[in-house]
């Protein structure tokens, strides 16, 4: 734990491929050859298919379900309704946030596209024909889509199933920070900047939709569920608790996962229905969503209505922050947030700034929309927090007439303030914010761009420069604070060294494209000197992998990555004893270098890890256990706080309102880097996923609660056509408490990018009297603003 790590140059050879080597991803050969195995590729003998009848109404009473015609469809074997599940007590299920949601409704549907009944058939086509033949008698009810209206006294109570003291659409109220201190600070401020910022509902839109095959073996009384999940172990426990099937009789097995982004953490009704169908028929049953089902019915992210008051002195010293937020969670609070954090880690909203006082409050609200609150591309609501504070700081700079870079520099938490205690209670582990911003400004040529902007503005051209200096908070989390449904958020790794010196490691996390098979092998290579290519990494089989909470919120390297390093060090400790035995030396006289234990002062007397591994099975000393393996369950002492500074340059077409991202420089700091190529890839992907909500993506509803973005025609996920050429660079500020000095990185760019783009657009339009534009900043919005301000092409 006390070992310190190099910041840059690898200490292992390229053949070993430890930390810092840009090893090509070992999973890619199968992906680029089309040989990945996704859930839809898995076919089991005798497998049946399940398809789902969905509600056209966003809120309605079910007066009856007539399945008689569906049962006449050739190939249809069974129809499952909420009443059937009610008989087994399975019509409701718990969410990971401690709320509950319907598997199938018995009386009332709560959102458009909600599951109403399931058809089991011997082919996918027959199942779909069966769905079309089910007649449901609905009586429409008043629809509540606006969370503010949901809180009005005369609003219908959407969840009367909750206790008598909870007959309100307010799910919970959550506070953080010191209200009195924030109020006092704001009252004493020269200027208070206030703004309403809406961060719209967006969807995960992973290219692989959700699906599973439930396979109940009635002879062995054993359930295998092949599924697309980011958290297989937690799912197994939830399945056992809900179904009462003993946990050792349940095996969750993942395959390759085509994107998760948080959307594959929750349990969806389709999974449960497939299990019920398999239990009923004794056959494997597959359920796969189609694209529109995925976009309309799966859990959503964001939907935060944020009001911020930011206090500042006249010369731009920030004094205090007060934030009031309405969080639209749809009809069920299905977030996978840690139980003490119903609004995730949104209270990291003080961001990169030394704010002496802050107070944050959030109200979760029910509406007639699908379950919301998924931590999507955002590390538990950090996207919402970062977008809000970065917009507010930019508005403050413009309003005070101070350059946004200068205002940030003036208010950054300084390097000597770490570990830094934020006004909302976090301990930031390490950071050097001025260095990252300075680097980004140098790369992009900030001063020259400001000159260019002034010239263009004089000519009537619209060019903007936007900065975002974000702080992320990832790696949940320490067991004293973090759990999901009571399960602590540690993570795990078990390593076994084979007699011939190669190895297998199994982890409690679950890759969905992050490159775990490569990076975790590199950690072991770093620690033990075994070439990364000699190490198999396995995840996602709950029968073999050690228990863990899974991969989301950039937690794998901070938790399971640390467990991998510690488990490898345990192996190294045992290897030392084995080496001492082989070398007939005192263990204390040995030193570890580059995969060998050697006698101090006699470098030619050594044993390689491979020789030691062989001895562990062939020549171990009496009294020592044979074998060379270790497991570690890592409970992180703190979260990690990656950060970065992004600068974006936009040009706006006055005729069409189109925003063109001309340049985008991203300087990231995720501490020590395991594989720089993979980190760069994650940042490229993350930036694209940050561009998306900034300019394109939003799930909207009409007043009847109909989802208006149910296809990729209406929900624009950026392609190579929309994506600019990202310019990435880095600074390295190791985490002081992580055994590798590493921090998470997967979501940094998705968190940091949107405000850089939004700030650039507003920067281009501020002189026209534009103060704020909610994302997504579509051409329609900009065009309307330009016309309103009298700007024409």
């Amino acid at each position, binding site marked *: 734990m006390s070992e310190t790590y190099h910041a840059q140059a690898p200490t292992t050879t390229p053949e070993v491929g430890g930390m810092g080597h840009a090893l090509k991803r070992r999973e890619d050969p199968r992906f680029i050859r089309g040989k990945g195995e996704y859930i839809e590729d898995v076919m089991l003998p005798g497998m049946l298919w399940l398809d789902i009848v969905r509600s*056209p109404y966003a809120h309605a009473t079910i007066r009856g379900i007539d399945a008689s015609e569906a049962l006449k469809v050739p190939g249809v074997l069974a129809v499952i309704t909420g009443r059937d599940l009610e008989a087994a007590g399975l019509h409701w299920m718990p969410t990971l946030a401690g709320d509950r949601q319907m598997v199938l409704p018995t009386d009332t549907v709560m959102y458009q596209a909600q599951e109403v009944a399931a058809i089991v058939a011997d082919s996918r086509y027959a199942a779909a024909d069966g769905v079309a033949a089910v007649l449901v008698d609905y009586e429409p009810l008043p629809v509540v889509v606006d969370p503010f209206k949901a809180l009005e006294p005369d609003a219908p109570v959407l969840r009367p199933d909750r206790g008598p003291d909870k007959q309100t659409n307010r799910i919970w109220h959550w506070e953080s920070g010191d209200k009195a201190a924030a109020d006092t600070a704001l009252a004493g401020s020269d200027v208070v900047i206030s703004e309403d910022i809406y961060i719209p509902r967006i969807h995960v839109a992973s290219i692989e939709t959700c699906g599973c095959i439930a396979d109940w073996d009635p002879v062995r009384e054993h359930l295998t569920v092949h599924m697309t999940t980011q958290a297989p172990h937690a799912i197994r426990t939830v399945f056992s608790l809900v179904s009462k099937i003993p946990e050792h009789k349940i095996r969750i097995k993942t395959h390759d996962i085509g994107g998760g982004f948080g959307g594959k953490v929750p349990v969806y009704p389709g999974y449960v229905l497939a299990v019920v169908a398999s239990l009923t028929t004794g056959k494997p049953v597959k359920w796969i969503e189609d694209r529109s089902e995925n976009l309309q019915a799966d859990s959503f992210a964001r939907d935060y209505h944020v009001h911020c008051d930011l206090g500042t002195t006249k010369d731009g010293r920030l004094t205090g922050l007060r934030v009031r937020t309405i969080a639209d969670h749809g009809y069920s609070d299905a977030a996978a947030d840690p139980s003490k954090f119903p609004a995730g880690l949104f209270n990291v909203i003080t961001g990169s700034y030394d704010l002496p006082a802050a107070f944050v409050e959030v109200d979760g609200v029910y509406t007639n929309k699908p379950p919301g609150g998924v931590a999507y591309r955002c590390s538990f609501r950090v996207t919402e927090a970062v977008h809000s504070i970065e917009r507010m700081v930019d508005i403050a700079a413009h309003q005070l007439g101070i350059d946004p870079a200068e205002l940030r520099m003036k208010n950054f938490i300084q390097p000597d303030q770490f570990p830094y205690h934020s006004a909302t209670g976090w301990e930031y582990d390490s950071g050097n914010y001025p260095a990252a911003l300075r680097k980004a400004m140098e790369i992009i040529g900030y001063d020259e761009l400001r000159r260019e902007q002034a010239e263009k503005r004089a000519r009537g051209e619209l060019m903007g420069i936007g900065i975002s200096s974000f702080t992320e908070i990832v790696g949940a989390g320490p067991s004293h604070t973090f759990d999901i449904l009571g399960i602590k958020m540690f993570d795990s790794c078990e390593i076994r060294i084979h007699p011939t010196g190669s190895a297998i490691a199994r982890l409690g996390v679950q890759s969905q494209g992050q490159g775990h098979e490569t990076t975790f092998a590199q950690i072991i290579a770093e620690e033990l000197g075994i070439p990364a290519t000699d190490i198999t990494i396995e995840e996602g089989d709950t029968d073999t992998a050690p228990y863990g909470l899974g991969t989301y919120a950039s937690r794998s390297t901070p938790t399971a990555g640390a467990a991998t390093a510690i488990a490898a060090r345990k192996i190294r400790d045992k290897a030392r004893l084995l080496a001492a035995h082989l070398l007939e030396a005192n263990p204390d006289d040995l030193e570890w270098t580059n995969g060998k234990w050697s006698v101090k002062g006699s470098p030619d007397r050594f044993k390689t890890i491979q020789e030691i591994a062989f001895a562990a099975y062939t020549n171990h000393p009496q009294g020592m256990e044979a074998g060379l393996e270790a497991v570690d369950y890592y409970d992180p002492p703190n979260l990690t706080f990656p950060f970065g500074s992004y600068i974006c340059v936009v040009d706006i077409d006055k005729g069409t309102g189109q925003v063109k991202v001309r340049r985008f420089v991203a300087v990231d700091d995720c501490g020590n880097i395991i594989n720089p190529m993979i980190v760069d890839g994650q940042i490229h992907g993350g930036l694209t996923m940050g561009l998306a909500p900034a300019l394109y993506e939003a799930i909207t509803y009409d007043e009847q609660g*109909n989802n208006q973005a*149910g296809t990729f025609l209406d929900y624009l996920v950026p392609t190579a056509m929309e994506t600019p050429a990202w310019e990435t660079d880095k600074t390295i500020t190791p985490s002081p408490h992580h055994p590798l000095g590493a921090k998470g990185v997967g979501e940094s760019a998705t968190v940091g990018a949107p405000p850089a783009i939004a700030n650039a657009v507003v920067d281009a339009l501020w002189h026209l009297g534009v103060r704020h534009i909610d994302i997504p900043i579509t051409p329609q919005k900009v065009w309307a603003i330009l016309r309103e301000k009298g700007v024409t092409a």
Partner: protein
Amino acid sequence: MHFEGSVEIRAPRDRVWAFVTDPNQVGGCGPGVESIEVIDDRHFRARAKVGIGFISARFLVDLEMAELTPPERAVIRARGQAPGSAVDATASMNLRDGAAVATTTMDWAADVTIAGTIASLGGRLIEGTANKMIGQTFDCMRSRLEA
């Protein structure tokens, strides 16, 4: 969605009234109607195929003559379902003698709520499609009544 309008029909009011209150006659002019089943003198059921943009759906629609004041006013309520979609509508029509002899003026209004897949995926096209369907329906009625 609310629609309303006024139509001049070159046929006497009694004849128009008889036509619009007979499901088998007026039903034939409904958009995409494939069959009409009369349940009783106030209730009937229609099967209709409707396409909006790239989506088409076969609706099963229950209709009720909710108000009949011959030969002046009729109110029809309809509730239809297709897989994943639903439509609820209330249409009223008021008949009066037209300016010319043996003509009728029909003032009509309809409130339509569309839910589900069609509203979700075809939302942008609904209003235009609905206007087109209404136009076709009245053209059909006129051509049959004026024949």
